[in-house]
């Protein structure tokens, strides 16, 4: 029996090892998923897109799908600790080239989610500013870009200062936001029923006969509500007992968010059936609340959404910079991105990603694209990146288990079901987008194709580098009984 050489210094040295408790790790997944913001905005977006009230069935199916993905991710996170998370996992299963592709997909996913969350915060923040100031004092777009830049700076500061500081506060605020959204939903459902009478059960299935929307975009939007649930993995190095804590955080975030979404979608199918005009607003639910109830309640809702989006931006940035950090350490991205600050955080990666995530949506907003469209577009592109990453990591799971000699039948079945359904959703969305003449899904497809191209070019130019990607936190000499 050969005993592999053990290092005494981890390849990810610089990050603070074993500092965070289970609550902080859970907070990362919950904040990145931002259930409160998703509950309040995702069904509304499905409504604006499809023109028919959203369907709870889409969210139920998405929950099952996401739990399958969570099971595949768990095969890795119970066995290895990697700040690059899905990127390193894919590389360990499918090899360096596929890993590099997954890395590109995930940069698109996390990057667009950061930009999307900042835009979401800007939308709700600007709506709040609009309630305070007299109409016409400040153009909406100026308020939006201002809030966007401000929140961008705030989350960058959090990301440099370290994950542990803000995690507990973020979790508490998210729980508060979820409660606010639930209460508001309860109030408006009662108001809608009082106005329109008891809803037809068919309304709950919704979608105007297409529970997943005309091209499965309803399902894609439902999956969008979950993305980020896997991001606890990015804190594995910094967590105590990561093999126990990380898989648990990922599974529970997916399960509880799913239940909340099904509830929220069912409620909103009733609400939007009573307020068909609200689909045109940037935040359809807030518009519906203003119609059905008190505008003050809409303001409370916007505050809840704002908080949740800030948490989402912060947590997604935390995950994104650890991915970029890993790539920097490997040499796939500029080496400087692999540096850490005196707080034990990848500060260079934070600076680079914040600038991009603030500038891109600001430019699009200033170009006159409505905030609601920008938000949906960024989130859809981000989700396509994530779904691409999920497909690869699900494919990688059984291959990885076979490689280390621990393959059994159930993981193969789970991976096959997860991959099959994710590919079907993506394909249906792309087909619908092509038929509908372009749009954000095609922009996403272009970015994903670019990621594949980049991986192939890298493999040709620097094969040794690509063969080595998938850095993870190895067991050190001092972790083993000697």
């Amino acid at each position, binding site marked *: *029996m*050969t*005993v*592999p050489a*053990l*290092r005494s210094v981890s390849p990810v040295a610089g990050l603070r090892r074993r500092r965070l408790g289970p609550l902080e790790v859970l907070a990362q997944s919950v904040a990145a998923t931002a259930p409160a913001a998703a509950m309040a905005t995702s069904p509304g977006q499905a409504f604006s897109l499809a023109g028919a009230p959203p369907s709870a069935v889409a969210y139920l199916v998405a929950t099952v799908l996401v739990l399958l993905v969570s099971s595949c991710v768990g095969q890795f996170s*119970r*066995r*290895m600790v990697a700040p690059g998370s899905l990127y390193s996992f894919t590389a*360990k299963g499918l090899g360096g080239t596929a890993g590099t592709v997954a890395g590109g997909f995930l940069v698109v996913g996390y990057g667009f989610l950061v930009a999307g969350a900042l835009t979401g915060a800007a939308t709700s923040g600007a709506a709040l500013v609009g309630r305070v100031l007299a109409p016409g004092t400040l153009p909406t777009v100026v308020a939006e870009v201002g809030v966007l830049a401000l929140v961008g700076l705030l989350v960058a500061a959090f990301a440099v200062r370290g994950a542990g500081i803000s995690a507990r506060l973020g979790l508490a605020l998210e729980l508060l936001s979820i409660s606010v959204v639930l209460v508001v939903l309860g109030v408006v459902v009662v108001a809608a029923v009082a106005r329109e009478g008891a809803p037809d059960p068919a309304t709950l299935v919704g979608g105007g006969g297409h529970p997943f929307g005309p091209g499965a975009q309803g399902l894609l939007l439902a999956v969008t509500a979950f993305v980020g649930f896997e991001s606890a993995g990015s804190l594995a190095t910094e967590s105590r*007992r990561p*093999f*126990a804590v990380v898989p648990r955080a990922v599974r529970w975030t997916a399960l509880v968010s799913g239940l909340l979404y099904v509830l929220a979608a069912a409620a909103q199918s009733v609400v939007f059936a009573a307020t068909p005009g609200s689909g045109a607003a940037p935040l359809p639910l807030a518009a519906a609340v203003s119609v059905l109830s008190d505008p003050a309640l809409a303001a409370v809702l916007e505050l809840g959404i704002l908080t949740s989006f800030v948490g989402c931006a912060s947590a997604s940035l935390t995950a994104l910079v650890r991915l970029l950090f890993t790539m920097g350490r490997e040499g796939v991205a500029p080496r400087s991105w692999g540096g850490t600050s005196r707080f034990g955080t990848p500060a260079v990666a934070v600076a680079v990603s914040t600038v991009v995530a603030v500038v891109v949506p600001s430019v699009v907003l200033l170009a006159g694209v409505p905030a609601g469209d920008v938000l949906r577009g960024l989130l859809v592109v981000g989700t396509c990146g994530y779904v691409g990453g999920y497909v690869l990591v699900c494919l990688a799971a059984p291959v990885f288990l076979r*490689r*280390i*000699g*621990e393959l*059994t039948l*159930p993981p193969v079945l789970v991976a096959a079901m997860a991959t099959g359904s994710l590919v079907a959703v993506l394909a249906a969305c792309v087909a619908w987008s092509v038929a509908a003449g372009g749009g954000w899904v095609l922009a996403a497809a272009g970015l994903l194709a670019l990621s594949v191209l980049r991986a192939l070019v890298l493999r040709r130019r620097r094969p040794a580098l690509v063969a080595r990607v998938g850095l993870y936190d*190895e*067991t050190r000499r*001092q*972790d*083993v*009984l000697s």
Partner: protein
Amino acid sequence: MVSDLTGRQPKALTSALELLEAVARAGSGVTAAELAAVTGLPRATAYRLLNLLVAEEHVVRLPDLSGFALGARVEGLVEAAAPVRVVTAAREELARLRSGVRAGVHLCVPRGGAVRVVDVDPDVPPPADPARARVVLEVLTGQEEARGEIAPGVRALAVAVPGPGGNVVGALLATSPASSATGLGGVADRLHATAKALGPLLE
């Protein structure tokens, strides 16, 4: 709770301990499939339990991700349980000290995260457990000397036993009734002298 140990759990506990034992026997680098074969457990069960042992850090995965080894956490377990032997030379030092002072003298050492009392004065048994005495904990966590009461009416004085590397390898504790005329007055210097001599002998 006994009621928690129902269904498959007692079996799982036994199997997990069997796996731990198998990892210890096989040595560093043994694979999950080999462990399943050695223990006779179904493969899926063995893999699940191994992942639990890894999650609790009793077992670690080696960098190739397929090999297992005992984790550093087992080291704490072994250290905490193993008997601590005090060499004859050290016992003689203690006997010399005891014959020279009118106080009970006891020796404590830190092991596996706990305090172990390794030598108790046979003539003056301590009125309370020295391992729980505040003065002992104080010197083991860095103070050179600590004074206080170990039980109502019993004074206690603890001094640190310095190891060769400058670290603290033990605590020497003297106890004496507060009513005693001599008390612990002149004991400190002799305790420190003996502690210095004991240091190299305790490693």
